[in-house]
């Protein structure tokens, strides 16, 4: 059972384009903020590394998300380095999530589907690598 179809007017289209443009602006701001945040966290990590006399070629630990909070609270250099690197990698992914939300608000189903498909590819990569399938 479907209700009466309501045709979209040019005014509706302009409003939706305005929503998308504003969302792009906000996503852009968020990306810049995340990039500077990651640089700041990495600088702290490198400063702690220098203070602890750790050589970059000494061989760092592998990433373990469950240890991150403990490493940060103990002011361990590797905690800040991992946090900075995770923010770096997360920035474009957050942009895709933001775009999916904004396209959803603008009723653009195809673009929402594309954004979700990109996220599925990323999650598949994480799942395959984390389970050691490769």
């Amino acid at each position: 059972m479907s209700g009466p179809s309501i045709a979209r007017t040019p005014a509706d289209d302009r409003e939706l384009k305005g929503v998308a443009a504003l969302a792009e602006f906000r996503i852009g701001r968020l990306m810049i903020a995340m990039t500077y945040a990651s640089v700041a966290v990495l600088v702290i990590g490198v400063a702690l590394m220098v203070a602890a006399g750790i050589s970059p070629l000494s061989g760092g630990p592998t990433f373990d998300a469950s240890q991150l909070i403990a490493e940060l609270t103990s002011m361990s250099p590797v905690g800040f380095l991992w946090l900075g690197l995770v923010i770096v990698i997360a920035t474009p992914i957050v942009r895709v999530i933001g775009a999916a939300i904004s396209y959803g608000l603008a009723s653009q189903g195809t673009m929402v589907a594309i954004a979700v498909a990109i996220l599925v590819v990323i999650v598949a990569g994480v799942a395959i690598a984390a389970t050691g399938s490769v």
Partner: protein
Amino acid sequence: MPVGLVMLGGGAVAGAFGSLLGLGGGILIVPLLTLGFGLSLPEAVGVSLVSVIMTSSAAAGVYLERHVANLRLGMTLELFTASGALIGGLVAVAIDERLLSILFAGLLAYVAFTMARAPRAEHGPEIDSLDEHDDDSPLAPTLDRLSGAGYRVRNLGRGVVGATGAGVASALFGIGGGIIKVPLMNLAMGVPLRVATATSNLMIGITAAASAVIYLFRGEIDPYVAGPTAIGVFIGATLGSRLGHRIELRYLRILFVVVLLYTAFQMLMRGLK
């Protein structure tokens, strides 16, 4: 820590070169870390991917704020670059490192060749004429939706194939893939150069992120190397973008071509050992 300072400085030089010449910088980071610091190729690629994402995100944020990038086209192609990067990230472990070094040498030689002829090649449609063939195709409504003000996107099929290839190359070599994506969008898909450059920059982040997560969870990103290098690349790219208009790019381009060819030779020798 002199090694850390050299790493940071090397990253800054790679970032500045990349920014001044329109490349991501990854093309120099991998040889720097493998030939200069003795890292394995997968470790160097993992660090390079992180650095590439960092410089791409900062620039992409500005492009989005100013509405220069075509987000719809970028996201559509991103689906294929990310898929290519996933494939490349999975395939990378199966390829012998010496073969990968030889392939990287080939990539460096290709980029050197492209840079050497760039002044003549950087032309593309500023305002595209309508493509009659595409008008008749079932993809015409999709192409309309992906087009921007003053230009019409065409050859989506070629774009999809090229974007997938760029994703595979990104994951294998730790590069952003702009060297493939910009000509693809500009020359094959009819996107103006300025929009193609901005859209490529936007796509680099998610392309590199798709394979960076694989390298991260496989334990091939060393935080002690990635931290100083990524900071260096960020500083270099920021300085490069501010100094670009004050530097004679012709001589810098020649120097870059020489550096690339020398590095290609060294990578080739590494692969043949």
